């Protein structure tokens, strides 16, 4: 877990060229730290954020978040639905808050579980039973597929 325990920048003037990123889920804060840039899946495609981005609120879709850390390394998170907020402070830093249902580092993803989930969701969708909640099953399938694909570290999902 890349829980870079940097103190949250109170004075935003300090890190003009970095993003202050925070990823929050109902269970815990999964990431809090700085990044050079990041890319996350919004409803209508990937959104790239660089320091200085305008303030924005958007919805986050299931997908892979790619983040470039200050040391140049890349890190990934599998995100499920939620909200993304960019706060641009004039003459100062840019905060990115992602508030999502879940955010997982691909390394901790249980591949077998994801595979089972894919099968389960496909079976459900194939049943053509009117009782099933179609959007929910589709959402489950999408989540499981992304989790599997995240293992390949391919952001083009």
């Amino acid at each position, binding site marked *: 877990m890349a829980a870079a325990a940097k103190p949250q920048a109170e004075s935003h003037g300090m890190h003009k060229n970095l993003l202050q990123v925070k990823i*929050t*889920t109902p269970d815990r804060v999964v990431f809090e730290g700085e990044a050079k840039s990041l890319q996350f899946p919004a*409803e209508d495609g990937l*959104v790239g954020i660089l320091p200085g981005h305008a303030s*924005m*609120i958007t919805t986050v879709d299931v997908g892979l978040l790619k983040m470039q850390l200050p040391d140049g390394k890349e890190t990934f998170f599998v995100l499920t*639905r939620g*909200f993304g907020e960019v706060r641009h402070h004039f003459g100062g830093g840019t905060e990115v808050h992602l508030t999502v249902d879940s955010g997982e580092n691909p390394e901790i993803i249980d591949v077998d579980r994801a595979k089972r989930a894919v099968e389960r969701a496909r079976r459900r969708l194939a049943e053509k039973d009117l009782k099933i909640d179609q959007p929910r099953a589709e959402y489950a399938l999408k989540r499981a597929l992304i989790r599997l694909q995240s293992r390949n570290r391919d952001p083009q999902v």
Partner: protein
Amino acid sequence: MANIRELKVRIKSVGNIRQITRAMEMVATTKLRRFQDRAVASGPYSEEIEKLVQSLAASVLSGDEVPPLFQERKGLVTGILLVTSDRGLCGAYNANIFSLLRRVLREQEGRDLRFYVIGKKGSSFVKKLGLHLEAYLDDPSLELIGYRDAARISRFLTEEFTSGKVDEMRVVYTKFLSMAKYQPTDFRLLPLSAEKTVSREEGGFQSQPLLVPSEQTIFERLVPKYLETRLFNLLMESLTSEYASRMVSMKSATDAAGEMQADLRKEFNRARQERITTELLDIVGGAEAIS
């Protein structure tokens, strides 16, 4: 004197009770800590959601079209989510909820009430009063409820409201104020009231943020999450109150047992002393009679 043996037995049994209540007190303390951790872990998420709601609510709710979850209805059906404990021995915890509930019943007179109950105590109370038990939510039990389960309950209750089954949804639970103070509370979950959602001061943004795809869409997604976090928080508050109450009542039971044991021991010693004195007198008297 048979009294002495009787006292001995009582001292022992009070001692046993004391041991049990002390163990229960310690269990309650440990569990309480665990529940508090769980509530704290979801704190940042609730805060983020709340912040988002507040930054959007003002402009969305001032629009012409009131979102469905904010619409007041004329209907007469009230759903009540009643949060109680599964087990007793937690002081006046459940009794306090029930006395509040009785007041709510008087206030809601004339309306059609449907009960959604968490906790065994609540379900037997509702049945005893012959009220309409719509759903008994016991899977999982309150102690094991995590965020996801709370979210499921929230979706269920919201669905009951949006489908028109109930015209408002209230919650009767126990608000946690401090380790020594918990207050049974009745509040309306749905429809949401616009005034309470919109906060007075809203700052932070230096300029109006871009809203993608649109303000309405984001808000419509946001509101269910907001309800989930509120529901989870109030369930956790109830649980914390229950265990705080249990801990306190077990502590006072332990103290009372300790006091009782001390009193009994005093009585026992006095009785024993008395017996020795009488025996001595007997012996001395006997010896005197012989000489």
